[in-house]
């Protein structure tokens, strides 16, 4: 089936809007065709994930667009890069990656993108509106936009995101289309571990279970603790997009397209209903760790996805005035850093030994001073990727357990 083109699409393909838009259209159309889209739609904004230096290839692509005089056609935020441009001295990796990563981030600015450098663009002023058609890269961002906001995007990969940004168009398929946003698998949480006071562990655990079970189908979750915050939903989505390819989830009575289970299912029957017990949730959390309780702790890594101001407001009182024994890294964005500065929290956290990592993330780049031994995190996504990316042992725990462990210098979990 051919992708039908508007007059404008055809003009772009013919080079009427310059050679960069033309190249973008040349890549975008086979991608649209490959996913079965019969046309393209206008997008209000894009989020480009291609700022992480993954090798010469993505720099070659960005430089090529710059050399063609390329310019994005819609507001385009940028995902994390390889470098913390605010604290470039934190980077302790190879010079080739420092140079390539720095250039890659600058090249995207030259293409007209907004230097947000965050994997949580939904926490910035560029948060899309309900129902907006957008083209977002970064699996957790796409999941949040679809699920928590009700904007509409597929999970765009690097390169496609920039092709959408350069053309202002996206393939009309998948989660852009109402009927594909229907839940197909229902997860019913039948019981919660009573020892889990907050909702954070339950959200990571159900995210992990749903991701493993669903692949890329849309789940609806029933029985999530009502105490779950927007930050907990962010963690749920990030985990489900790591252990699986979940681009959208519904939490019944919570997320905007799931006022009821029937609404999430769009009136149809689920293909499968999965019953989840407290024991399933506990086992899932246990299996996210490769390190045992009591292991000497090298560092705690928080902020995958980027810490929100709400998460900092929980972290700051947990840390108080005491200096931590283990190192602690917290990833966040420039815009959240400004809010930390305004509240005096930057100085307070740094005095306690916390390293704030801006524009990037500890699991995609080398900023940690000591990479040996055990790392601890409250992020299901970080716990999933760090053993492979960083070759470290991981202990997963709640935010409170992470802080208690950093103070003790060893893994100390209550649950």
């Amino acid at each position, binding site marked *: 089936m051919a992708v039908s083109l508007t007059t404008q699409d055809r003009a772009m393909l013919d080079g009427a809007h310059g050679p960069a838009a033309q*190249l973008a259209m*040349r*890549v975008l159309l*086979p*991608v649209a065709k*490959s*996913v*079965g889209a019969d046309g393209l739609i206008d997008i209000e904004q894009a989020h480009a*994930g*291609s700022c*992480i230096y*993954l*090798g*010469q*290839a*993505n720099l*070659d*692509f960005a430089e*090529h667009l710059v050399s063609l005089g390329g310019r994005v056609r819609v507001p385009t935020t940028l995902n994390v890069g390889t470098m913390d441009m605010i604290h470039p001295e934190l980077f302790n990796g190879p010079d080739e990656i420092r140079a390539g990563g720095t250039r890659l981030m600058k090249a995207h600015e030259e293409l007209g993108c907004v230097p947000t450098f965050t994997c949580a663009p939904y926490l910035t002023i560029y948060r899309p509106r309900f129902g907006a058609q957008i083209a977002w*890269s*970064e*699996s957790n961002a*796409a999941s949040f936009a679809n699920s928590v906001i009700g904007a509409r995007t*597929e*999970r*765009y*990969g*690097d*390169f*496609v*995101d920039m*092709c959408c940004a350069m053309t202002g168009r996206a*393939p009309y398929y998948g989660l852009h289309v109402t009927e594909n946003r229907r839940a197909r698998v229902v997860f019913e949480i039948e019981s919660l571990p009573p020892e889990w006071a907050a909702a954070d562990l339950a959200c990571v655990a159900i995210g992990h279970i749903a991701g493993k079970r669903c*692949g*890329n189908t849309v789940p609806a979750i029933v029985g999530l603790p009502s105490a779950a915050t927007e930050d907990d939903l962010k963690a749920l989505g990030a985990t489900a*997009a*790591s252990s*699986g*390819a979940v681009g959208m989830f519904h939490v019944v009575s919570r997320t905007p397209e799931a006022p009821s289970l029937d609404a999430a299912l769009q009136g149809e029957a689920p293909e499968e209903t999965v019953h989840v017990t407290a024991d399933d949730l506990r086992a899932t959390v246990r299996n996210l760790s490769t390190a045992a309780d009591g292991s000497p702790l090298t560092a705690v890594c928080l902020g995958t996805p980027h810490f929100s101001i709400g998460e900092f407001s929980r972290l700051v009182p947990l840390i108080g005035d005491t200096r931590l024994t283990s190192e602690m890294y917290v990833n966040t964005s420039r815009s959240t850093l400004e809010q930390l500065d305004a509240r005096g929290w930057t100085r307070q956290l740094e005095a306690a030994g916390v390293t704030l990592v801006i524009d990037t993330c500890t699991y995609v780049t080398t900023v940690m001073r000591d990479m040996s031994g055990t790392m601890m995190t409250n992020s299901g996504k970080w716990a*999933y*990727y760090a*053993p*492979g*990316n960083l070759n470290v042992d991981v202990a997963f725990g709640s935010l409170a357990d992470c802080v208690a462990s950093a103070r003790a210098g060893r893994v100390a979990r209550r649950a």
Partner: protein
Amino acid sequence: MTALAATTLAPGRADAAPVVLAEPLSFCGGLDAVTGRVIDRWHPQHGLFIAGGILVMESGRGSSGGGPVLAEAIRLGVAPLGIVLMRPDPILTVGALVAGQLYGRHCPIVLAEARDWPRITMAKRLVLDAEADVARIELFDA
């Protein structure tokens, strides 16, 4: 030899032994683009060398940086020579398309029919011809 029809996602030709993955692999964080090895510690085939074979997996998975990782592996010559999927994956498709545009090196990606999957995974050698919209997969027993 058996010939099957499939859908071209990214163009090219390849001829190699299949490397069948038991679970979908996220290229971003799951594949080392320099060595061509599976580095996802949670993947049952952790450590497997996938360069030079035709990767056969049901679908893509995980974070969206997979395209550049595939493009870089293609640039360095440690990518699979081709990929057979059962579900379309735009992340891998664009990685192959961009590598083709930038370097003129092609890693064909084809979408096979679900009913053909058992035969594809059992074959000893695969030949992919993905120059046209309709691709051809040739299966050999030896």
